């Protein structure tokens, strides 16, 4: 969409309003908050993955500083149940009760003048542990008699089944592909960890909590349920958030604990997660296992897909997404952007003695893209058809849009084959093939493709179906013109890097013509903003963008009515543009004059003026709850050193379509940053566990995050197919970049290894995994 020529509206690459404070070190993150009298909290965390908690001995001198589950008798456990049939319920205690179920589970809370002193006290506490067998592998957890939750008959959180009888195809299909794939457990690793500051305000009879949170309103609802306070007694403020990616889209046990503690001791308290806590207690995403069987014809057409998938769901069901969302999503999105008609998929969410699973940027999509794109390359290999053509034969075509796929997902718009064509063309595959043909030494070139679509901004009907504690409805926004003509926007979603202070000001500019510099976004405070489920699921550009537009449109009508009166023009004859109300003859009054009249000189207005004034709350939902489908094709070249197992990324191209971009610069930033995370998933990031479910990467020297030297320059090819469902045609795309890289890179590495008879079927593709695959192939 054109931005009206001003260079500031929807579609403009407007520099970000929020940058200045961060560039001067003036951002305000939770660890920067100071309250007089504030005390510091450390948690004593269980060092064993699965153990009964015997006697807890606290030195007499420190009894008043230490709190355990036996003190939190008036606190309810965290309950995130799903309504899906067969879901097994479990409670997550705020402090471990009876036993610990993963390393790092909080057992005691210690308060002191400084964090160091609190940690000193933690070191003096003695706990009589009674170790139990630890469940570290999800396949073993399905077979054993040991239980993560004793009251369960097994360790299955949820089993889902999309059934179809594929026997006719299995009997006749000329091509049968079988693959067993694994993805590693990861830690999302925002550079800022979690953190909480809590204070009980006696005057307001209110808990005030600052937390680095993606969804402050959901945090408040969860705190209300656990602490037995009504919502009015809780205010959650999320200040600047130093990266989220899903890691901060959760009700934390620590939030509940500090909320309780601040009231109990009558002093403000602070807990700031350190990196050791983050890595040892919260490697909580991505771990999948797939058994895939695909059937294709000789022309490379996928006829049917049969999958059994497992997700290691960890020990508890996190609030609000629950322990089953990841695996249940696998069943619904594994078919990807392809149009085959026969599908069978059984999934298991398996409880183990690891941290409870959370949805990480891309959620299940990153794993399923790796799975289906591995299948596509296997079909290409089996049929001798090239990797682009085999995909083109199976992709949903643009003339079929909107398209309802085999799992009843409705793809709203787009041209998937064109995205693939553009990415492949930009990579220049023929030149890379010629290079490969000339290679005889230890360094081998590989070429990889992946393509996917991403459901974003999906709403009420979809989440009602999951039956989890959070169901998004209409997203609301408030637009208020202040007496001096500044526009205040208030939304309940919250930015953790997405630049909403800028992109939503652009939305307001498009509707009202107001200069984005005169727009202030208020967000991240439950006391000041309308209820929202927050920022997750690639939803804020669509949902908050639509809501801000709706609020500004209503505000524009009220502004126009006042402006028309001041201009002595017919009410319906004026326009709101460029920050003014303009009469047909060209006479105009500014928004500032309109606002001044309403607030400061109301004697100038007629008696029948709209008394609702210049303060509007409006709500918005897209035309369908099924969500928008952005999509992208990734194409990359790699070189693999078969002597060291080291992979070097070469050219990397993405063709993507997020519909109309509110701010294309910000969208590019989301895609580039997501892609870097996807490269981490593909090549580097893994939390290994030993046989006792002990995490083995306890610092960033062990858990490898990609740096500037590991990420190649990435070229983006833009496409823009407006979504028919949303206010400006925008689509959710914030997670997109993280989805495609593991599939494209794994395919490229295996392409390089193919002449040597080797193949890697697990992520991340580390040098060790490559050398082991070569060794298995006799190399």
């Amino acid at each position, binding site marked *: 969409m054109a931005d009206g020529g001003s260079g500031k509206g929807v579609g403009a690459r407007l*520099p970000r309003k929020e940058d200045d404070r961060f*560039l001067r070190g003036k951002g305000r*993150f939770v660890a920067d908050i100071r309250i007089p009298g504030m005390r510091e909290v450390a948690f004593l965390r269980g060092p064993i993955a699965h153990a009964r908690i015997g006697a807890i001995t606290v030195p007499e001198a420190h009894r008043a500083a230490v709190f355990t589950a036996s003190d939190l008798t008036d606190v309810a456990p965290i309950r995130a149940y799903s309504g899906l049939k067969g879901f097994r319920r479990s409670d997550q205690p705020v402090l471990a009760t009876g036993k610990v179920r993963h390393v790092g589970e909080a057992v005691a809370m210690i308060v002191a003048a400084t964090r160091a002193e609190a940690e000193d006290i933690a070191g003096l506490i003695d706990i009589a542990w009674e170790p139990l067998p630890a469940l570290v592998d999800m396949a073993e957890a399905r077979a054993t008699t040991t239980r993560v939750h004793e009251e369960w008959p097994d360790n299955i959180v949820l089993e889902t089944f999309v059934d179809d009888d594929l026997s006719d195809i299995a009997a006749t299909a000329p091509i049968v592909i079988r693959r067993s794939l694994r993805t590693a457990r990861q830690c999302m690793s925002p550079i*800022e960890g979690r953190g909480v500051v809590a204070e009980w305000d006696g005057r307001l009879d209110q808990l005030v909590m600052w937390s680095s949170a993606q969804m402050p309103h959901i945090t408040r609802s969860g705190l209300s349920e656990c602490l037995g306070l009504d919502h009015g007694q809780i205010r959650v403020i999320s200040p600047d958030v*130093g990266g989220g990616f899903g890691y901060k889209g959760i009700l934390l046990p620590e939030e509940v604990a500090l909320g309780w503690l601040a009231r109990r001791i009558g002093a403000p308290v602070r807990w700031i997660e350190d990196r050791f806590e983050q890595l040892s207690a919260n490697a909580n995403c991505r771990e999948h296992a797939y058994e895939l069987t695909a059937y294709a014809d000789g022309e490379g057409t996928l006829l049917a897909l049969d999958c059994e998938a497992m997700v290691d769901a960890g020990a508890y069901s996190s609030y609000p997404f629950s322990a089953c969302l990841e695996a249940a999503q696998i069943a619904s999105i594994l078919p990807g952007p392809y149009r085959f008609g026969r599908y069978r998929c059984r999934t298991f969410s398996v409880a183990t003695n690891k941290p409870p699973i959370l949805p990480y940027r891309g959620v299940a999509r990153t794993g399923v893209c790796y799975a289906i794109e591995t299948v596509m390359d296997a079909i290409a290999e089996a049929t001798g058809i090239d990797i682009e053509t085999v995909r083109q034969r199976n992709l949903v075509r643009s003339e079929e849009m909107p398209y309802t796929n085999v799992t009843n997902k409705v793809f709203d718009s787009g041209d998937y084959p064109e995205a693939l064509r553009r990415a492949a063309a930009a990579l220049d595959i023929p030149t890379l093939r010629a290079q490969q043909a000339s290679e005889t030494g230890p360094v081998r070139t590989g070429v990889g493709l992946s393509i996917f679509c991403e459901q974003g901004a999906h709403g009420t009907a979809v989440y009602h179906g999951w039956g989890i504690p959070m169901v998004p409805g209409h997203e609301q926004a408030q637009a208020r013109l202040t007496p001096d003509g500044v526009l205040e926007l208030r939304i309940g979603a919250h930015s953790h890097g997405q630049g909403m202070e800028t992109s939503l000001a652009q939305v307001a500019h498009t509707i009202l013509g107001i200069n984005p510099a005169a727009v202030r976004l208020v967000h991240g405070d439950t006391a000041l903003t309308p209820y929202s489920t927050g920022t997750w699921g690639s939803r804020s550009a669509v949902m908050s963008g639509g809501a801000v537009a709706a609020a500004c449109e209503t505000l524009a009508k009220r502004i126009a009515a006042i402006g028309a009166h001041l201009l002595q023009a017919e009410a319906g004859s004026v326009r709101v543009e460029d920050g003014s109300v303009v009469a047909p003859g060209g006479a105009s009054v500014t928004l500032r004059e309109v606002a001044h009249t309403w607030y400061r000189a109301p004697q100038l207005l007629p008696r029948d003026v709209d008394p609702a004034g210049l303060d509007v709350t409006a709500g918005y939902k897209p035309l369908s709850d099924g969500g928008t489908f952005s999509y992208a094709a990734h194409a990359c070249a790699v070189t693999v050193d078969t002597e060291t197992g080291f992979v070097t990324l070469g050219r990397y191209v993405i063709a993507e379509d997020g519909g109309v971009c509110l701010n294309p610069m910000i969208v590019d930033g989301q895609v*580039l940053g997501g892609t870097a995370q996807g490269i981490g998933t593909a090549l580097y990031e893994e939390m290994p566990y030993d046989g006792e479910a002990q995490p083995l990467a306890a610092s960033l020297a062990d858990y490898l995050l990609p740096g500037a030297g590991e*990420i190649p320059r990435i070229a983006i090819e833009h496409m823009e197919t407006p979504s028919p469902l949303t206010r400006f045609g925008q689509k959710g795309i914030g997670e997109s970049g993280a989805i495609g890289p593991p599939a494209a890179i794994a395919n490229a590495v295996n392409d390089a290894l193919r002449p040597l008879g080797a193949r890697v079927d697990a992520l991340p593709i580390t040098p060790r995994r490559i050398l082991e695959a070569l060794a298995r192939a006799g190399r």
Partner: protein
Amino acid sequence: MTTLTVNGIETTLDVPPRTHLADALRETLGLTGTHLGCEHGVCGACTVELDGSPARACIAFAAACAGAVVRTIEGFEYDSVMAELRAAFTAHHALQCGYCTPGMLITARDIVLRIPGADEARVRRELAGNLCRCTGYQGIVDAILAVLAARRG
């Protein structure tokens, strides 16, 4: 008691011996622009200028900094090179959440002044000690290259 110069002001710190420089800057002096990411000296979020070179404030003990000259992001408010970098960081969308940004800027300024002829590969190598989880580095690299190019004329 440790006396050092912080952002041009001679400052005496009275902190326990185990206090690292970043905690002293943040908690004692209120200079919260220095961020903590890992406290292992890996991520670079706490990078400050120590005696003229970038250093990890999380693995320097405050008590070991007697006589040192420390500059935090707040101390570059009127620095002309930093002003060029700030403008370039915004123009090239080199920050999203802003958490790694102060440390990244201090490293970037050092690259610009120390290696005026740096190319992209060199800039990426020099940034190896500063992790960013949001941007994928491309905007950061482009911003630094733009400042280098502008300064070369």
